[in-house]
């Protein structure tokens, strides 16, 4: 059988959805970027305020470098929270649908009666999820690159904005791949979402509290948020933790989930 037919169908069905997500994320990016000049003007006041905060809070906001520098501002206002969270909502919903969701709505079985293997359906749909997730991420990155001089963010280079875009994408895809893997392995849509969103939230909490609580500090190295925010690609370029470690998790989760799917009973 030719490859790509399941993928192409998924993209066709989700054209409108990805458009709306991209519009929403473009709006969020634009509003955030456009607000920077005002924050910068208020500069010293903000920085004094931030200095009074415990260091852990600053880390949680991704604002160790100060909120008024372009890098600190975008990290704290965009990349450490709202942008990955929005992309997670989009990506986790989609990943849970690929196998577990379609199994539950009972459309997977008629599809699999065609000459197409379970692993092919699963992998093409994971690829579709990964591909669709790049669209809002690209839109956001291109928008920032295009408007950075307009909004006084031009201290940031094109490459830095690309690196942080890739880092955000990999962070999100990591949790999305866990969702996919649990859905493929168990057929449970709720379980898939719970694991994907739960691990994302749990590791966020570990990272956020690690500066205050020793127990969490010892676990901090486990948190993908630590990999991405402590070794921020926005300021440090393509760091190993932010780039390689998510890829390792994805490269483990996807094949394992797919392999279990090919062996189990469908629900």
């Amino acid at each position: 059988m030719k490859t790509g037919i399941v993928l192409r169908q998924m993209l066709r069905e989700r054209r409108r959805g990805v458009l709306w997500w991209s519009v929403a994320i473009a709006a969020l990016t634009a509003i955030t970027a456009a607000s920077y000049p005002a924050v910068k003007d208020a500069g010293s006041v903000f920085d004094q305020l931030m200095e009074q905060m415990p260091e852990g809070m600053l880390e949680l906001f991704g604002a160790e470098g100060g909120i008024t520098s372009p890098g600190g501002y975008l990290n704290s206002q965009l990349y450490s929270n709202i942008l990955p969270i929005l992309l997670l909502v989009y990506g986790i919903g989609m990943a849970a649908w690929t196998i577990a969701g379609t199994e539950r709505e009972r459309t997977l079985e008629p599809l699999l009666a065609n000459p197409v293997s379970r692993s092919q359906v699963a992998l093409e749909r994971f690829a579709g999820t990964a591909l669709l997730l790049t669209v809002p991420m690209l839109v956001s990155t291109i928008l920032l690159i295009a408007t950075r001089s307009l909004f006084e963010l031009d201290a940031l280079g094109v490459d830095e904005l690309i690196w942080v875009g890739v880092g955000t994408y990999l962070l999100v895809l990591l949790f999305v791949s866990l969702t996919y893997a649990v859905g493929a392995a168990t057929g449970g849509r709720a379980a898939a979402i719970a694991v994907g969103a739960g691990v994302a939230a749990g590791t966020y909490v570990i990272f956020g509290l690690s500066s205050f609580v020793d127990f969490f500090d010892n676990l901090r190295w486990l948190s993908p948020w630590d990999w991405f925010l402590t070794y921020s690609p926005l300021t440090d370029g393509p760091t190993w933790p932010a780039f390689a470690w998510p890829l390792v998790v994805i490269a483990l989760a996807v094949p394992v989930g797919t392999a279990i799917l090919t062996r189990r009973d469908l629900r």
Partner: protein
Amino acid sequence: MTGSPVIDIRALTKRFGSLTAVDSLDLQVAPGEIYGLLGPNGAGKTTTIRTLLGFLNPSGGTVRLLGSNPRHTSVRRRVGYVGGDVVLDRGLKARDLLNWYADLRGGLDSAKIDSLCEQLALDPTRKIGELSTGNRQKVAIVQSVMHEPDVLVLDEPTSGLDPLLQRSVLDLIRSRRDAGTAVLYSSHFLPEVENLADRVGILRRGVLVREDTMSNLRDIARQRLELRFARDVPADLLAGIDGVSNIEIVDRTAYVLVDGSVAELVKRVAAYDVDRIVSHDEDLEDVFFRYYQDGEDG
């Protein structure tokens, strides 16, 4: 059976936890044969079929389709399937779904798909989610036969269809059979397969309790009849007719159970102004299983 079986189930057992849904089932279907798999809901028909298609793994025994593992895509290419509770992607137009499935099958003649839609009076431009249950069922049937499969597996395919359409679907299935397709057709309703199947297997609680040709089974099937008379009839009117039992006469209505032919019964009542004869197609549970129960007891 004529050729070597293309559907070949041997000693199939399927357990879900402590529940045994199918127990040591043997079932073969040859090319050009329609096999009716009968049984009440919950008898294990759907489990058997889902295992046959490779959606479930057998707990024991083997399942072969066209001589191979049903999970092989080369086998799937030659198989058509309509599942029990059919759900096709609701957001798609019927035609888009059919095109998609046709692509997965390596591309099919679109005139052929059109003519099938026409034959079943299906408007393929509508979204599947907006179609009635019957029309959705038609989409499922079209996708199952559009590639002219060598094996057709149908799990209660005419549920939700009106009688007229049921007939066109059954005609479609017959023409596939005549073209050499092996058909496994499940139903919980005897009359549906009565004029269709060449052989019938009766499944009860996961066990194939009887397998026979349709003509042999017809002889043992019992009918529950209700005869309504225009006037009062003697209480012993129906006594002593071969094969007629459980006679009950209330006012001007007689309730009987008939084994085999009704000819004698009809002759006996001919002189008594029968207004109406109502046949209650009994649940198979009643018709067949009581028979076997009796057989086991006696």
